[in-house]
């Protein structure tokens, strides 16, 4: 079946449309079933995927607007494959975790399924306009999820989220249009295909400006310091499922954009911008980690820590070598799993107590031992303890970035220390110590629904922490293809030197 990617994209959307008909009491089961089928489809894609091939596979191309060079062009490589699987997994587990008494369950399921379509679409798109289309569409269901099921300031948070990203992506759109125009100038054809753009030679100045335009769109999505202000609001107000998907998948769109667009299309500008990105990322890593430390609200701690780790991913993307880039793609996956799980865990306690303030808790380990254990595992993975999923990516990124800037690596490495500090403090305050609040004494431990959602994540955390090879290898292959392409395309010798495809070459 060669059209498996199209099925992956449009199956959830179709299911979402049909979902309007499903009775509201059966909506959750319907959602779980559809999301499970989607996950199985994505696993099937993995099974059929040629792991040794680093290039694009299952490519489909249908002209939509040939007059303007827009075509429905999708494909998958080692970089996008696992992000898509991760998106399908997180959506499924998120839906499982939904409480049965969620109000307007049907609308929630339908929005989530549409959101899933846009997420899968973004990561599979090989045409800039199709990419942009899914990118923008993803805002709409998220706006609704935050706005309809969120906290007291949900409308403000939802609109802030929408407008912030919308403004950034419109500037990105100008960049896309400019690239298409330059491609037209060079070849005489209109094309928005990224694969065509990979062959396009641009001067340094052109690359510089287009990079900035792309940066506006991607950086807000990541979100990079100082464009991160929308995220704490969105997380603070979003319902659990919203935060889970936002942190696990939507933020990855930004970093994925850098990998798919900025690096291969604008290699010289990417190298020129390394110091700039490095500075912002390191500020992001350290500053948001400190902010996380100062939070009183459990969810805000995790929100800021998620931003902090996104900084490490950014560093890896701009390390310009296979270790860093491959590591950061892996870190995108592990960040998705871990931060998704952490937001789920916070949601669990919030449902029981109606508060997320750490001061309200204490001694939870006694009343909820299973919960405390899972929380502990995820926390360790978030900090980057060896043999957990968090360690692999973080280690590779730091290793890769060391060749770019040892000082930057050391500063960024402090994330592990500060991260350990605020995470352990969170854990200590909430789970250990005397049980000061009587309300915590009779809390029920995780029930079957919550365990179903969380146990798979725990297993993945340990499995990929111990044995990451099945995932790292395909990622590595595709990353090398990407880096080779960049090096071939780079016009200045400094850029060529900065791009290191494999260790051997460096020596």
């Amino acid at each position, binding site marked *: 079946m060669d059209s498996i990617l199209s099925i992956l994209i449009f199956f959830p959307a179709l299911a979402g449309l049909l979902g309007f008909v499903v009775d509201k009491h059966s909506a959750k089961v319907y959602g779980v079933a559809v999301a499970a089928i989607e996950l199985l489809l994505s696993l099937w894609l993995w099974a059929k995927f040629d792991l040794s091939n680093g290039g694009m596979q299952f490519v489909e191309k249908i*002209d*939509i*607007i*040939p*007059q*303007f060079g827009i075509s429905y062009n999708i494909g998958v490589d080692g970089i996008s494959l696992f992000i898509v699987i991760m998106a399908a997994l997180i959506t499924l587990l998120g839906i499982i975790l939904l409480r049965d008494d969620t109000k307007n369950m049907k609308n929630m399921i339908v929005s989530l399924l549409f959101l899933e379509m846009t997420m899968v679409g973004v990561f599979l798109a090989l045409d800039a*306009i199709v990419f*942009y*289309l899914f990118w*923008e*569409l993803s*805002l*709409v269901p998220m*706006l*609704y999820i935050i*706005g*309809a099921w969120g906290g007291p300031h*949900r*409308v403000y948070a*939802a*609109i802030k989220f*929408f*407008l912030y990203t*919308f*403004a950034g992506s*419109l*500037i990105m*759109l*100008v960049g896309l*249009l*400019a690239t*298409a*125009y330059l491609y*037209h100038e060079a070849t005489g054809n209109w094309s928005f295909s990224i694969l065509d753009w990979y062959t396009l030679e641009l001067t340094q100045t052109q690359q510089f*400006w287009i990079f900035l335009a792309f940066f506006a769109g991607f950086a807000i999505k990541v979100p990079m310091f100082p464009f991160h202000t929308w995220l704490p609001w969105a997380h603070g107000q979003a319902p659990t499922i919203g935060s889970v998907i936002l942190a696990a998948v939507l933020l990855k769109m930004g970093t994925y954009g850098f990998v798919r667009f900025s690096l291969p299309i604008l290699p010289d500008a990417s190298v020129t911008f390394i110091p700039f990105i490095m500075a912002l990322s390191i500020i992001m890593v350290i500053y948001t980690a400190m902010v996380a430390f100062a939070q009183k609200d459990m969810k805000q701690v995790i929100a800021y820590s998620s931003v902090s780790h996104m900084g490490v991913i950014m560093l890896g993307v701009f390390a310009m070598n296979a270790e860093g880039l491959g590591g950061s793609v892996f870190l995108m996956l592990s960040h998705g799993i871990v931060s998704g799980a952490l937001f789920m865990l916070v949601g669990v306690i919030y449902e029981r107590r109606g508060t997320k303030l750490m001061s309200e808790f204490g001694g939870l380990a006694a009343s909820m031992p299973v919960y405390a254990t899972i929380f502990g595992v995820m926390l360790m993975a978030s900090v980057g303890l060896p043999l957990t999923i968090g360690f692999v990516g973080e280690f590779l990124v730091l290793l890769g970035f060391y060749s770019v800037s040892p000082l930057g690596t050391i500063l960024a490495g402090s994330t592990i220390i500060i991260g350990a500090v605020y995470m352990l403090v969170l854990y200590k305050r909430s789970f250990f110590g005397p049980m000061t609040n009587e309300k915590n004494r009779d809390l029920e431990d995780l029930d079957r629904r919550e365990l179903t959602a969380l146990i798979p994540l725990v297993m993945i955390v340990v499995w990929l922490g111990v044995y990451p090879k099945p995932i790292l290898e395909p990622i590595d292959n595709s990353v090398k293809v990407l880096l080779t392409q960049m090096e071939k395309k780079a016009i200045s010798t400094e850029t060529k030197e900065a791009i290191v495809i494999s260790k051997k070459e460096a020596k």
Partner: protein
Amino acid sequence: MLEPVNISLEALNLATLMPMLIAIGGGLIILLIDLAKDNLDKSLYVMLTILILLIDLGATAGLTYGATQKGFFDVLLMDGIAVLSQVLVLVASMLFIPLSLTSKRFHEYSYPEFFALFLFMIAGFQFMVSSDNLILIFVGLETASLSLYTLIALHNRSNSFEAAVKYFTMGALAAGFFSMGSAVLYGISGSLELGQIATAISERMNESGVMILILGGAALLLAAFAFKLSLFPFHTWAPDVYEGASAPLAGYMSVVPKVAAFVVSMRIFEMFIELQVHWVQTMVIVLAVITMTITNLMALVQEDVKRMLAYSSISHAGFVMVAIALATDKANTGVFLYYALFMFTNLGAFTMLWVSRHKDRVHHARFDHPYEKFAGMIKIMPMGAVVMALFMLSLAGVPPFSVFWGKIYLMSATVDAGYLWLAIVMGLNSAIAAYYYLKLIVYMFLREPSKDINQETVYYNVSKPLLTILGFAVIVTVASIFMVNPLIEYINTMIQATNFGI
């Protein structure tokens, strides 16, 4: 003694006149029917009007067109954009006229004169777009405008009269500017035909003192069309007029007169730009940027959805005005693409207002359509809320809905012409605009409905014809991705069959 003038019938090329004659003849037939028999239902007139428009569309589409296809004493010019804009005008009119078949009775539709005037107005627009003779453009413009003033006033309400009088006064001023500008150009060239004016200007441009005249003439014409296109600073009448007019008519006004005025602007201002009168280009860009920004900011603070949509349509016009300054084929294609897609979405949005229109203001002392009226609409009428949200997202430029393709095409044309900063300004304006469209979505989806609102009050005015038109609008809005390519192809052939600036 006067010499007898001999003109062969072929040279007259009466076929070029057919579309307008059909519209005028149709209007007269409606008046005659009214004379013969009283108390006929409006549905008869509506269907007759649609049929007449359909014949008109056939006649227009069947015209032989070409860049130099002239007719009727050489005053009519049937080039690509003339035919194209007539098609747009007729399609928009066919979408508009069934909206009079509401379930509640409204004053204006009980008069057959409404429909006759409507057809005369269309004839006026058709004359206006298919000529390069300033006199005929003027005659067409005034025919159309005078009919339109009356149509607005027929909506029997005090603020409709206010709107009509305001529009009339402003229109008269614009007409004054137009005739003065034409007079100046006539003074330079001794002709009222744009082709000859262009030749004369290019010959005399370097004579001392002529440049001042050219600038003066261009400025007067620019002011005249700024009135008609509601560009800053001549836009202040527009929101009041839109508010006073009935909702469908307001939607119609945000499309058809604009298309006609854009066609004439293309003919006149792109001529100046081709002649390297840089001042005109700069002025048009400045006007476009100020128009879209100021009206966007004004739309942010509106309390009434109809006024918000009025300001937003002005902003859209400013957005499209950029294309006139660029004066490239791609930009001109963009204008028509934009309006062809915008037409369905915007008419759809105004139709949604029309569906919920009451005779009296039940929701607010001052406004017919305050935001509160739509609060919690998702709970009262989910389909209606989803449809309205689709229109709003489309207007905001969220892909893949219709207006996005117009926006991206125009922005692409701007980038191609080297105005990167202008493209970014256009992008940022779309982001500002997203706020007020979102505001309505937030009201519809995220607020609780107020107590006295139920399905009855919101679906007050609904009828099958209205739902049909809404259906068309939704289909085009959602499935536009498949229509863009044939549209661009068609518009492109039409643009190729047009001489700009000569």
